[in-house]
């Protein structure tokens, strides 16, 4: 899986940085840049604040704000949902994950989901944890299912 690097976005009135220890390390170049440009910014360390506080904090931000969120993949999805719910659009935020990223694979037969390490995407095959069908994981992500689609792995018997 490609690593996403945070990129600086110009001309915002305010920059928000939210992340865990490792995430903040990845955001440091951007924070330095913002400091150098002398623009307003706020930093929130994950773990210091309750999730509800973070959501309150995001909800009260004004237009013209840019949000950087960098944390473990396992937490990122949830926080991203909160940010979007608060009104941050694709153009007003960047989400950067680190660590192991687990993804869901949607079983074509029983329609249940199985978690796999995203690093294994494309490697053959995985087994559906519900119906035990052997699945090959396609690179087709279905936003509807929130998963990658898994198809029956037709072994040739060779």
């Amino acid at each position: 899986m490609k690593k996403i690097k945070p990129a600086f976005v110009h001309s915002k009135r305010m920059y928000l940085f939210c992340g865990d220890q490792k995430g903040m390390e990845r955001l440091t170049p951007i924070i330095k840049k913002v400091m150098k440009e002398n623009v307003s910014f706020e930093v929130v360390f994950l773990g210091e604040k309750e999730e509800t506080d973070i959501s309150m904090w995001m909800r009260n931000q004004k237009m013209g704000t840019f949000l950087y969120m960098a944390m473990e993949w396992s937490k990122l999805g949830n926080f991203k949902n909160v940010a979007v719910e608060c009104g941050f659009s694709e153009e007003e935020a960047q989400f950067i994950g680190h660590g192991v990223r687990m993804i869901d694979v949607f079983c074509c037969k029983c329609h249940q989901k199985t978690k796999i390490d995203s690093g294994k995407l494309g490697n053959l095959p995985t087994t559906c944890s519900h119906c035990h069908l052997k699945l090959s994981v396609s690179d087709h992500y279905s936003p509807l299912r929130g998963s990658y689609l898994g198809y029956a792995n037709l072994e040739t018997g060779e």
Partner: protein
Amino acid sequence: MNLHKTIPVQVKSIHQETPCVKRFTLVHKHNDPLPYFSGGSHITTYVELDGQTIARSYSLTNPPGQTAAYQIAIRLNESSQGGSLYWHEWMKVGDTLQVGFPQNHFPLSFKAKHHVFYAAGIGITPFMSMMAELKEEGRTFELHYAVKSRETCPFYSFLTETYPEQTHFYFSKENRLTDASLWEHRVGTHVYFCGPPSFIEEFTRSALEIGYPSSSIHYERFTPSQTLTRRRFEVELTSGQTVSVPEEETLLEALLKSGIKAPYSCRAGRCGTCELKVLEGKVDHGDSLLSEEERNGHRSILSCVSRAQSGKIRIQL
């Protein structure tokens, strides 16, 4: 005449909103229901004057979902070339005319968490149906409305009665509308501007400077921005015909005058209906539709607003 289909309508009533603004209620000539429209839609009206058809677009001001009648509000424009003057001076109850199907180039964003409308003068009109739609759906919005005075404010009593909490008036002598409130909107807000081009430009610029993403900024122009230098130029058509466009006319007007059926709709450089292919020559673009890349390519021209940069261009028609 436009290539779009039209609907025959009759003027059912005329209401003097303010000394300069009249509101017209139009019904189907045969009492049929009119096509459905959404918040922010407009219609093009076609009136016959001295053997010429004058086409003008006006926002529908009644709540969407009403198909028994359409309402439009028209301000008498001092420099009117027949459009608003005709409506104010000549249009009577019972008169019939043709109107186009409702079109919407100014729809509400479905992504917004909160909608804020900025109107100057008659720029209030598209917001009337948009606010009705939002209220009906229980979504949140506010209106910042700049007008000269209470007496010249269209829909003043309607707004104070229907949206007392949401409406903020700015009467220029008492308190001018500034961009200050743009700094206050919460994340997730979408802003909508409608009024004279200078008003739209100023507010759009402020919003971008504050850091609003352009996808959260929406505006509607009813008149093209007047930044182009108007020089006479010649147009050669693929049919072999040459049309000359004088200073005071647009390319579209010149084509129509020469009896050429050129397509058009908004006449303000924002719908794209009048786009024509350019085969030779450079274009001075006056529209708010083409992308930077398309502009630089000089491969198309919106005949209602844009002109030739050089003395002559060749277009496909």
